[in-house]
């Protein structure tokens, strides 16, 4: 019932709106160069960032659960910061750091790497906001993982790599996958932190959510809803595929 009100109702509005302009209107919106470029950019960079967050998140979670070191609790709390920070603040902060006059931006620029106002900037922002999703889904699994199993593997002569590949990885894989899909979903819809660092050049660094806002600002409600619907369908498909993958993993885990 609540799910219906909170989730289905707005989605229904989104699905119904584009039909005002008919099928041809929807098609001409979806085949605009700018729309295609924006969708490609949004999903491409989101995928890349979420994939990068898998090893980064796993390493962070591993460090936080397996090692005792001063400041561990502080770092543990810091991981949640991208959750709590208003995304616009994150965007402005990242731009200040990676911009051409920023602490990291300036040395990077000297190396010939432009880290802001292009897709690299978008990637950096999405990396930042996606990391806690992977850490927070993997961490409890690592905590619950029975150390004795690992120790048993060690006494049976497994190398570190074997221990990781054959004992730890299968246990955390489902959590990694769901962390990945959460980070990916969040990245696709992310607006606030990205627009400050993206540069927002049409066809180059203009993300799909920004294009929706631009279309709204031109009073093109149906066009905006069309892009929104396209994003919804692609995201839904991607998440469905990830869920399927998880099901397969879970079955294999039981067998």
């Amino acid at each position, binding site marked *: 019932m609540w799910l219906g009100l909170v989730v289905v109702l707005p989605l229904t509005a989104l699905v119904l709106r584009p039909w005002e302009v008919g099928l041809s209107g929807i098609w001409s919106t979806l085949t605009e*160069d700018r729309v295609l470029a924006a969708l490609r950019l949004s999903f491409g960079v989101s995928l890349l960032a979420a994939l990068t967050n898998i090893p980064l998140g796993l390493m962070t979670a591993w460090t936080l659960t397996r090692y005792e070191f001063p400041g561990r609790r502080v770092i543990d709390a810091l991981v949640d910061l991208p959750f709590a920070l208003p995304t616009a603040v994150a965007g402005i902060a990242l731009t200040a750091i990676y*911009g051409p*006059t920023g602490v990291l931006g300036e040395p990077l620029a000297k190396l010939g790497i432009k880290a802001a106002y292009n897709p690299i900037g978008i990637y950096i922002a999405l990396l930042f906001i996606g990391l806690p999703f992977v850490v927070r889904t993997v961490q409890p699994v690592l905590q619950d993982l029975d150390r004795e199993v690992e120790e048993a593997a060690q006494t049976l002569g497994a190398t570190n790599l074997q221990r990781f590949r054959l004992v730890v990885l299968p246990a955390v894989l489902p959590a990694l996958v769901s962390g990945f899909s959460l980070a990916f979903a969040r990245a696709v819809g992310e607006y606030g932190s990205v627009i400050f660092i993206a540069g*927002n*050049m049409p*066809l180059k660094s203009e993300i799909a959510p920004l294009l929706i806002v631009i279309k709204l600002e*031109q009073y093109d409600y149906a066009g905006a809803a069309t892009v929104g619907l396209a994003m919804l369908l692609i995201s839904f498909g991607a998440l469905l595929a990830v869920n399927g993958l998880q099901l397969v993993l879970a079955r294999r885990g039981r067998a």
Partner: protein
Amino acid sequence: MSIDEILNRRRLIATAAAVAVVPGWASAESGKSLTLLNVSYDPTRELYKDVNAAFAAYWKSRTGQTLTLNQSHGGSGKQARAVIDGLEADVVTLALAYDIDEIATRAKLLPANWQSRLRNNSAPYTSTIVFLVRKGNPKGIRDWGDLVKPGVQVITPNPKTSGGARWNYLAAYAWALKQPGGTPAKAEAYLSALFKNVPVLDTGARGSTTTFAERGLGDVLLAWENEAYLSLEEFGPKFDIVYPSLSILAEPTAALVDKNVQRHGTRVVATGYLNFLYSPLAQDLIGKHHFRPRDPKALAKYGAKFRKLPMVTIDGEFGGWRKAQAAHFADGGVFDRIYRR
């Protein structure tokens, strides 16, 4: 809707009811408090803060009513859309007439002839577009032609989302058109070259000012004259203002939102507010905040900083906003084309 807004609405409804029963607005309402919402564009924050304080004092002395003036700021197009979608503005003061036209045609909240209801095309002040360059103008930027030179970085917001950016863009186009042998095709090629020199497209004028002034990006910022002076005030000696050989006469417009004031029972005070914008007191504040006042006295007082330069107008050069919007900024228009090249 927030609690405050609900309470406000209740009070407004009660006020409206009282007015309906007792003839004579001011006598019925004296001593009670009133609320007015002015929905405006980005760079007028400081101006309306002062104007509102002055008007509240003036209204209190004249009618005895205590007035609460609320202001809302953002990109002009975004603000217009908020009003269309139900933001209960009593008056709108936006960057361009086109945005108020949209409120009139899409939501029918005010009549189509709104622009003839107040003096001077309903624009209590004007402004123009100038260049803000880094101190000493190291790249020697003097006019529009210098913006397309290789190695010059130009900062301007996205004309699709920013009212100010549309004025920038149209001023550039008009200049190119007026060059010897200028044609629409040549003007389009000029704009294409200009936007190749634009490294970032912010969504609003304030965003671009931040990019230029605080991020240190770009050699020249195309800016509202008032924003340029404000940057000089805030960042002091880091920048110079350059006046190009030709610019555009920007007329930010003000209007009463009829349907909303009717519901709120605020027609009298809202009309008073709009007329107040033309008063010597408000005109002086307008000049102080670097907008070009209409009032000759205020203009004379602040005139020294407003350099006289040839300016084209939207109606004269582009046949009005509606035509300019359709030709340049609508999907598939000139602005989309220059990015496809």
